[in-house]
């Protein structure tokens, strides 16, 4: 088990394996997204209260879910990198940040566009869910800015990991904000107490799965770039690039 793990975490091995794995995530992911988008927009019945505006849930929930998933990966990878000094872990953390920022931005935008017709407001300062999600976006920006400001990769890795770990507090707040405090945002539907008709729920779950697979392949692409850059002076990169077959 440990041997297998160390082999996976070895940069050249990971670099080769991820190239093979990536399309196996992206293709089913895109297929699921295409199917669920079709279902969510045209097939699923509208909501008895919100009418067709409810269909925004099919992009809002997956993006919000991934905004938190990406942060969890970033912070966990940072901790693993700090404790076990695994270089690949820091590459994973660095790669997760821009994707997480993109999904956080999307969850805020889709939430705002959904809130305007339903709640009657684009944005409410002071709402715990909205504020903590906005702070999540700034944590991603802060993480990327911190990394960008430190030239030494090893130092940037450490500083970034510490920031990511401290920011977990906010992640917990995002998650529980609608339970601990009063909020304009409703409680959770998908994994908790809310109810949803099965014909509405299935496409949403498939959409979440599809976006998660796509996220996986997006993450792999960015990790590969990180690994390649970090290992640019190593022998295996040299051999791969100068080999007649070439790499990618």
């Amino acid at each position: 088990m440990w041997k297998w793990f160390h082999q996976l975490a070895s940069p050249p091995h990971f670099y080769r394996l991820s190239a093979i794995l990536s399309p196996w995530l992206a293709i089913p992911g895109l297929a699921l997204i295409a199917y669920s988008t079709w279902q969510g927009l045209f097939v699923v019945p509208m909501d008895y209260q919100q009418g067709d505006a409810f269909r925004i849930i099919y992009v809002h929930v997956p993006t919000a879910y991934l905004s938190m998933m990406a942060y969890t990966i970033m912070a966990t990878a940072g901790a693993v990198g700090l404790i076990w000094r695994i270089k690949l872990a820091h590459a994973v953390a660095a790669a997760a940040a821009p994707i997480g920022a993109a999904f956080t931005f999307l969850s805020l935008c889709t939430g705002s566009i959904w809130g305007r017709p339903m709640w009657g407001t684009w944005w409410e300062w002071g709402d715990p869910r909205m504020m903590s999600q906005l702070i999540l976006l700034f944590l991603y920006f802060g993480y990327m800015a911190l990394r960008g400001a430190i030239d030494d990769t090893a130092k940037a890795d450490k500083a970034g990991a510490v920031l990511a770990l401290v920011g977990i507090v906010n992640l917990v707040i995002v998650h529980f904000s609608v339970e601990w405090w009063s909020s304009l945002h409703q409680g959770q539907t998908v994994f908790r107490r809310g109810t949803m008709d099965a014909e509405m729920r299935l496409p949403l779950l498939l959409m979440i799965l599809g976006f998660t697979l796509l996220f996986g392949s997006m993450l792999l692409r960015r990790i590969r770039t990180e690994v390649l850059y970090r290992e640019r002076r190593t022998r295996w990169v040299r051999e791969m690039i100068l080999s007649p077959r070439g790499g990618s």
Partner: protein
Amino acid sequence: MKPRQQRMLAIGLAALGIAIAAGLTLRAFQDNMMFFVEVSDVVAGNYPKERNFRIGGLVVGGSLQREQGSIDVRFDVTDTACTVPVRYSGVLPDLFREGQGVVAHGRLGGDGVFEADKILAKHDEDYMAPEVAESLSKHQQDIQAAVVRGTGGCNPDDS
């Protein structure tokens, strides 16, 4: 202790410290983290008197009155026990309905009526097709529940 275990311990202790600090800070700012005040707290007098604030609850079924020829509306907002009347002049959000959640921003007048300058609709976490809701008579149930709740015993001193 191995260096790896030392690092693990250091990170664990730091995380614990941050968690405790964050927990205490949030506790201290508990009131500020609330987006709105519950109706029972308003009735009991537990609301910010020096500034405008928001109240949240359900619109009591059958309480909505529209003034003829104007955009003025009156309705009652309830939590599980108490009720506060609300007066508002303006456009209501699409989701504003009797028996549904609402958040009103404004101030409590001397007559005990909440003068709202902004109304937001708050929906629940249940989603269903119109036919399904129809068969469950969901609308009627929501309104009924809000009516029952609105007439329940209000004991603001308890809280």
